[in-house]
């Protein structure tokens, strides 16, 4: 069974239009508009800094705690929003799926891709915070695109599973907020992964977002040593998830139109 990637490529304009539609309508009829992309990580950062940073005195690898946790929240927010958007993408486009043929993969892909705008906006917030804490950019930030890609692959990989499942089992819709909450605490956002020692830290990397968050933090705010093994583990996990998800999606998509 092939993945029919060539066909997906032929429909790349559709992918573009879907992504563009998502971006375009995301903040329609909201008062705050794109500011929501900032509000979400900003307020989470404030709460975390107060409770984990100030009160619980969670260590933060000698980085100012607000900066430490924001550097984790920015990629996390991209991941979590991508997950929730993409997982429901097939169901919200059910009338399209039951009426027109197009590569179904383009729906979850564009849903995750459309989060890139929000990611860019929240990166501005992060840059602002770095200026405030007089943190300078190093050459390490050259690695950033790699971590963006890893975040995208992780989000898409999980979304392929969940979106295909959601077509048949609407339970997924209820499970996702819960899942992403659990996952957030299983990811080193409020605390550093350096609490663990090798090899446990690398094993922790099977959570692909652990590698993304630690890598992102390392590239921007310079958490001492590069978490290499962990990122390696995360990359493998994310790729496996993506490939498995793509095959699962392809197998299930034959019945989407009948079931959705």
């Amino acid at each position, binding site marked *: 069974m092939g993945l029919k990637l060539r066909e997906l490529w032929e429909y790349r304009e559709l992918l573009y239009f879907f992504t563009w539609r998502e971006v375009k309508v995301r903040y329609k009829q909201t008062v705050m508009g794109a500011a929501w992309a900032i509000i979400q990580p900003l307020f989470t950062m404030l709460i975390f800094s107060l409770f984990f940073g100030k009160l619980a005195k969670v260590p933060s690898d000698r980085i100012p705690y607000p900066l430490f946790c924001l550097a984790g929240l920015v990629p996390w927010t991209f991941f979590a929003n991508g997950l929730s958007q993409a997982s429901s993408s097939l169901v919200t486009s059910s009338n399209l799926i039951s*009426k027109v043929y*197009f590569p179904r993969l383009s729906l979850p892909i564009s849903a995750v891709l459309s989060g890139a705008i929000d990611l860019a906006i929240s990166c501005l917030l992060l840059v602002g915070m770095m200026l405030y804490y007089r943190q300078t950019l190093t050459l390490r930030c050259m690695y950033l695109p790699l971590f963006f890609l890893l975040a995208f692959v992780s989000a898409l990989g999980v979304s392929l599973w969940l979106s295909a499942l959601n077509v048949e089992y609407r339970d997924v819709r209820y499970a996702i907020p819960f899942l992403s909450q659990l996952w957030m605490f299983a990811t080193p956002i409020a605390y550093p992964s350096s609490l663990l020692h090798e090899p446990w830290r690398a094993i922790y990397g099977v959570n692909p977002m652990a590698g993304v968050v630690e890598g992102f933090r390392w590239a921007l705010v310079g958490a001492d040593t590069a978490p290499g093994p962990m990122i390696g583990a995360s990359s493998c996990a994310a790729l496996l998830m993506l490939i498995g998800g793509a095959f699962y999606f392809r197998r299930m998509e034959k019945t989407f139109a009948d079931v959705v």
Partner: protein
Amino acid sequence: MNEIAISARGLGKQYHVGAIEQSGRYKSLRESLTRSASAPFRLIHSLFAGHRTGVDDRETTIWALRDVSFDIKRGEIVGVVGRNGAGKSTLLKILGRITEPTTGQAEIYGRSGSLLEVGTGFHPELTGRENIYLNGSILGMKRAQIAQRFDEIVAFAEVERFIDTPVKHYSSGMYLRLAFAVAAHLETEILLVDEVLAVGDYRFQEKCLGKMKDVASSGRTILYVSHSMSSIQALCKRALAFSDGRLVADSTPQEVIAGYIGGTLENIHSEAPDPQRPTITRAEVTLDGQSILLSIDFESPFPLTPPVFGFVMHNSVGAPVFGTNNTADPIDPPPPSARAGRFEVAIPAAHFRPDRYLFSFWLGDPFIDHYMREMILHINLNSAVGGGLPTDCNGNIYLPTRWRFEAASGR
């Protein structure tokens, strides 16, 4: 060169229907509880097996399409008729690759496009312009193609002034016109069309039919599903009739339509009331001396203020002959607001030539048609009632005419 455009061999499509829901009984609470308690286990069981939720022995299956084979040549325009649920839409979905057949296979030679329901993929928050691009690309057009035909599409839809307004502010007519316009400009070799002409007002329907004729004459292969017998006759040289998922006729539109309509109709139609919308629960057409009598009972979950009933009579090949309603022909005294009641209409039979006449019904209030059934009753008028002339060349309506003759003088 390949002469065949679409080839279907033994196509079948099976759907799972919950037996419990189908018989209309309510599930017992105990049953619901045990089902939901065992749900996680069934989920895990069926998750990797790749089949659907709760396919167990309590569920039955239906064949929406069964053992259908046919070939369509390049450039042929083929109409598809059948009642609701006869399998027409399922056929189009299989040919359009939207769903896979359970048995058999369909081969499509050439690029195909589906016009399955106009307006799918329109996003209310986007402007007309944006939706043209979005919808066009969903239907499989390239961006350059859309740009090239953009003005044509806008002009056809007659929405020039509102092209940069979000479509949620469009009237339903404008919305449908734009949607049809995008779909009609799709340039694929094979076109699968489902009921697209049922949009907009009469004038726009005419325009759509004209557009379809243009498309038809451009040498493309078209499979055209419609309830409108007259548009099938106008467009197609061949028609397929479906009944209960089987292909029952494959011939000229005239023969197929006459056979399809003739065989299945009664002069009484009854239907269970729908808790959601007004329903004609019983409709009967009888002949009483020189009058055709319609007797229509309806029930509605909400009051219709006042109820408006309309009907159209069609001839034996489905062309509309005459229609009216109680807005056009007011009832004296006017009906009060009502949730149930009976309309009785007497139509002078003497004005109709002998033929089989079919009736379509509408029910609603002065603003909305809540209920509509096309060609569900029939009556045969023979020469004893109508005028005694054949219908095929003289039309269906007989009107009293005044004649004069003067012999030329001097011969």
